[in-house]
């Protein structure tokens, strides 16, 4: 079993599916000869040809739009948006067409496309390269929003995204691309969408996170263990549709919940999870639900970005506060 980092796992998943399903094709800026600016598509044009690995003109709205047209005609396009700061021009196509084509035509036409993009802060990138827009896409009915937190989950979830009959926005935490390696069997096995993963069992408090924030969250769980706090950690993985049952079950067990995300706090996806818990598990709670989110500020340039991303210390402090609430 090969040891892969996250970006290699993405590459392997793309290659596996292209080799096994000739309707899969890739399009995006600089993904061909160059293999993508992060090398997610490295070697794929040489292997599968220019017709199936397409270097597009620099036009994000049209990249999403032609993917809609391709998908409607039976292809499975996987479109790469080079950085999430440039994903906003795709919103017109994603909200007005990709997410609605099945509904609009009562299932006559469908849109099995994947919109991939590196996502999040922490790699000292220029402005507009570090955004976390998952809540924007999660608000659109008809889309799936998937965020892996490890190489194995990136491999299995991306395969599932490519096999899903509906459009999927697949956000890849840039900070994790090369952070660590993990044994990944390149066997074509997918992981379930619409399901949270229980990453660590515990009985005292439920920590809910996704993507790169799983790093700080798991580290915080380790630190809390030293203090005698047994934290359960949930990797949401599919933001939309949300597997709220798994979260509720955990909160009913632990009585406490801290939600951690890298996107700004206001109207972030943590608010949605907190609201679901308030509506459906309030009387299981021993303390108010806490959110540890990025501040409601523009993602700062690199010198301050570590202070923007929620730290292990902030998570630990929020959990301590939740523990006092009993």
């Amino acid at each position: 079993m090969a040891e892969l980092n996250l970006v290699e796992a993405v590459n392997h998943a793309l290659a596996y599916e292209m080799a096994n399903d000739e309707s899969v094709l890739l399009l995006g800026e600089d993904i061909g000869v160059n293999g993508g600016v992060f090398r997610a598509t490295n070697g794929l044009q040489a292997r599968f040809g220019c017709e199936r690995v397409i270097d597009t003109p620099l036009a994000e709205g049209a990249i999403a739009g032609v993917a809609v047209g391709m998908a409607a005609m039976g292809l499975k396009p996987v479109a790469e948006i080079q950085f999430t700061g440039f994903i906003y021009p795709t919103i017109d196509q994603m909200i007005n067409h990709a997410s609605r084509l099945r509904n609009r035509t009562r299932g006559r036409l469908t849109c099995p496309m994947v919109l991939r993009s590196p996502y999040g802060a922490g790699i000292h990138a220029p402005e507009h390269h570090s955004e976390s827009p998952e809540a924007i896409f999660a608000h659109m009915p008809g889309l799936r929003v998937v965020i892996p937190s490890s190489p194995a989950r990136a491999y299995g979830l991306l395969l599932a995204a490519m096999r899903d009959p509906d459009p999927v926005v697949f956000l890849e935490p840039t900070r994790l691309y090369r952070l660590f390696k993990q044994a990944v069997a390149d066997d074509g096995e997918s992981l379930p969408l619409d399901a949270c993963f229980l990453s660590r069992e515990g009985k005292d408090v439920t920590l809910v996170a996704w993507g790169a924030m799983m790093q700080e969250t798991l580290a915080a769980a380790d630190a809390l263990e030293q203090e005698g706090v047994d934290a359960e950690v949930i990797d949401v993985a599919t933001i939309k549709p949300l597997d709220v049952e798994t979260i509720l079950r955990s909160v009913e067990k632990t009585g406490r919940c801290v939600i951690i995300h890298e996107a700004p706090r206001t109207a972030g996806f943590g608010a949605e999870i907190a609201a679901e818990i308030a509506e459906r598990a309030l009387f299981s709670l021993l303390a108010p639900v806490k959110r540890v989110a990025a501040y409601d500020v523009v993602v700062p340039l690199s010198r301050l970005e570590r202070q923007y991303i929620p730290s292990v210390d902030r998570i630990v402090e929020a959990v301590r506060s939740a523990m006092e609430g009993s």
Partner: protein
Amino acid sequence: MGIHTSVDPETDTVRFLSPEGALCRPIPSSIGDELLVMLYRAMTRTRIFDGKAVALQRTGQLGTFASALGQEAVGVGAAAAMQARDVLAPSYRDHGAQFLRGMTMAECLLYWGGDERGSDFAGPRLDFPNCVPVATQIAHAVGAAYAFKLRREDRVVLTFIGDGGTSNGGFYEALNMAGVWKTPAVIVINNNGWAISTPCARECAAASLAQKSVAVGIEGRQVDGNDVVAVYDTVRQAIEKARAGQGPTLIEALTYRLGDHTTADDATRYRDPELVRREWTREPIARLRAYLTRKGAWSQHKEDALQRECLEEVGQAVNAYLGAQPADCNAMFDHLYAALPASYSYQRDMARRFSPRNGGGHG
């Protein structure tokens, strides 16, 4: 075929029939009287449908509707040049083309009457539904055409956009990709002179919209959009070229919107009635009727029969539309995803519980 460096509306506009229905140049021998009569019938059918749809809206029996009054030649001429296996990516005023493709009048009424089943065409199954956002459909056409090219399929995609839509960045982005990829796509600009109340001169300072093809390296053509022969012949050539792997074409069809933008609009607020009266002397249906009549291929008797036939067809479509029961509230959830995600069952159950059909209130 070389790349045009300019399109001059004075010299490059394709026209066979003058506004009076006289021949400006010989009609190609491949376009026989039988085809011309078919085009005439299709335009008439569209106009009679439009009149009825507007009347239904005025009497509260249809939602907002976008009439194609005056510009029937663009949709009819273009769609008549397509094969059944080709794909249409329409805007929201292209039912003249959609009827020829096989979309039924009842489906059109269902759509404008507020029912998604109106976009589930019994046929053609692969045509795109109406596109209400402006200019996004051009990218769909280019992507669909790419799929055909990749699979070496002998199929072409035709898409329509209005004059106002060409101001949108999405139009240029997709046109550019069509050029780079040489996709079998034909893009028809339905230049009816108005983007709601904004005249074309306030949309674009170029001498023609067909010129927008120059910057992306594809061929641009301009036709008299009130001459159905010119539209048909030009689109036919563009489709043949696309089918032969010679890439896309941008066609600007010059027509005029004789009606309001939609039934929610009042064009008398911004339009000189004198200009509209003048445009009525150039409209496409009377023009072709004059030509066919002079040739002996059309008569008052045939006209009366056609009018009766169309009115009957429209009447049947209206009955089918008015008789269609509204969909159940489940319909909001049924086609959102291939299978409804588990987390949605709570919301669907609530919709059912509050549905008037299940004794619920107006919630």
